[in-house]
């Protein structure tokens, strides 16, 4: 695998999204991630790779998994990690995003991992500061490392994504995971079907490189992979679907539905799970579920991303 990418040079100082990446670039991140997997499995779970680098976790939105995963990934590569959480609404007055970032930068940081409720916030940072910027989720735009760990997990299970039929079920309109997944999976040759009620589909969905299906039952039999997105309860208030019960009835991944799926269907979920709502416990914990593997793989993928953006930044410095 390494051999085929021998001449490839990673040049991106930032990872803002997967929409602009080529299949080759995505493949290269996944290849690189493989090299990092063993760091987490051996007796001393640490490598000196990013010693002396400073990584800031700049989180403007609640997150446990992603923040811990990035923190651990950076720690395992011996970087110094600073947590800077500031959960407040984007419209609130006070210090602007750029001012916050510039202040942090003045203290000498190398990589900013940013989570923000406004789409495009990482892009804004990348245009205005010198540090590398990694998008850890921005609004409804992208969550590139989540999608990378998704495709990494699928690739590990199946060797390749080419020709696989992948379903993404749930609130697509308000999901950055779905958007990043769509870009990554289609670029790697999978056929993606979005599953959910029309009220949770993005506008002009027909112009996206995907199929759309309003009934999970219509496609469950043909899917190789199903990624169940988390139900956002706040959507219910806006009446984009009537009730949790009705949602589960049509779009929940139940034991009953699983009987009709392929025996080796891969069941994924970006977490946190609403047990019994979008996915039944037996399915989430069942033999087809790779939900915890996704979490483990997330570490390797994030280590790879930290490593690569740092490499590209170094190279630019040289120039």
């Amino acid at each position, binding site marked *: 695998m390494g051999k085929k990418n*021998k001449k490839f040079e990673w040049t991106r100082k930032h990872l803002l999204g997967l929409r602009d990446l080529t299949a080759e670039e995505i493949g290269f991140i996944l290849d690189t991630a493989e090299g990092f997997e063993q760091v987490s499995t051996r007796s001393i779970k640490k490598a000196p*790779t990013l010693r002396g680098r400073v990584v800031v976790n700049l989180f403007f939105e609640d997150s446990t998994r992603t923040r811990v995963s990035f923190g651990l990934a950076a720690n395992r590569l011996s970087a110094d990690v600073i947590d800077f959480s500031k959960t407040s609404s984007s419209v609130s007055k006070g210090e602007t995003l750029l001012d916050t970032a510039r202040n942090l930068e003045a203290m000498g940081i190398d990589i900013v991992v940013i989570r923000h409720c406004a789409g495009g916030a990482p892009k804004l940072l990348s245009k205005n500061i010198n540090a590398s910027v990694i998008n850890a989720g921005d609004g409804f735009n992208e969550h590139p490392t989540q999608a990378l760990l998704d495709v990494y997990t699928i690739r590990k299970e199946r060797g390749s994504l080419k020709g696989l039929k992948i379903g993404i079920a749930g609130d697509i309109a308000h999901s950055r995971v779905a958007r990043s997944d769509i870009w990554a999976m289609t670029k790697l040759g999978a056929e993606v079907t979005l599953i959910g009620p029309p009220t949770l589909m993005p506008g002009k969905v027909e112009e996206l490189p995907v199929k759309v299906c309003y009934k999970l039952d219509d496609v469950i039999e043909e899917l190789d992979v199903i990624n169940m997105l988390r139900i956002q309860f706040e959507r219910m208030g806006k009446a984009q679907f009537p009730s949790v019960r009705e949602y589960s009835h049509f779009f929940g991944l139940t034991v009953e539905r699983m009987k009709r799926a392929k025996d080796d269907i891969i069941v994924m979920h970006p977490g946190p799970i609403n047990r019994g709502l979008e996915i039944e416990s037996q399915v989430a914990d069942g033999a087809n579920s790779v939900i915890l593997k996704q979490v483990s793989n997330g570490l390797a993928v994030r280590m790879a991303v930290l490593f690569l953006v740092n490499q590209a930044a170094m*190279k630019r410095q040289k120039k």
Partner: protein
Amino acid sequence: MKEILSAEQIEKALSDLVNRIALDIDPNTEVAVIGIRSRGEILAQRLVKKLSEKLKREIELGVLDITLYRDDINDPQGETQPTVRSTEIEFDISDKLIILVDDVLYTGRSTRSALDALMDLGRPKAIRLAVLVDRGHRELPIQADYVSCRVDIPEALKVSVHLTETDDVDRVTVK
């Protein structure tokens, strides 16, 4: 470009290397061979085959990727971008005698990285370094235990090891 080792000479050098290593191995010691990516990996494959035959026992083989341990990784002056690949060592290295294999010993920096990488995997009984070519110009206080060929050439020259598995031919050249 000048050839300093031909295919036959490489073959002979490896056999010779194996003989010397075998002499030093106590029959009760567990031994494993670990090659440094990428050419050390191929040499280690060849070496472990010969060594197994010689000692008449199965000897484990591992591959070490040292990219994460390189000291030029955060150095803007570092030359080409290194590619991270997997370390494949499926056994516990603790309490084993490890024969670490590389193609060329030069500055000693790769060996330093490899030693650090190995130490993070466990606590071997001992590590011995075996190389095909020692071309001198060390920058760190590191010496090999087994050397097939020593060449005394100016620092500006480059030693290239070609092996059939990746380069279609076995030979060592100086340019």
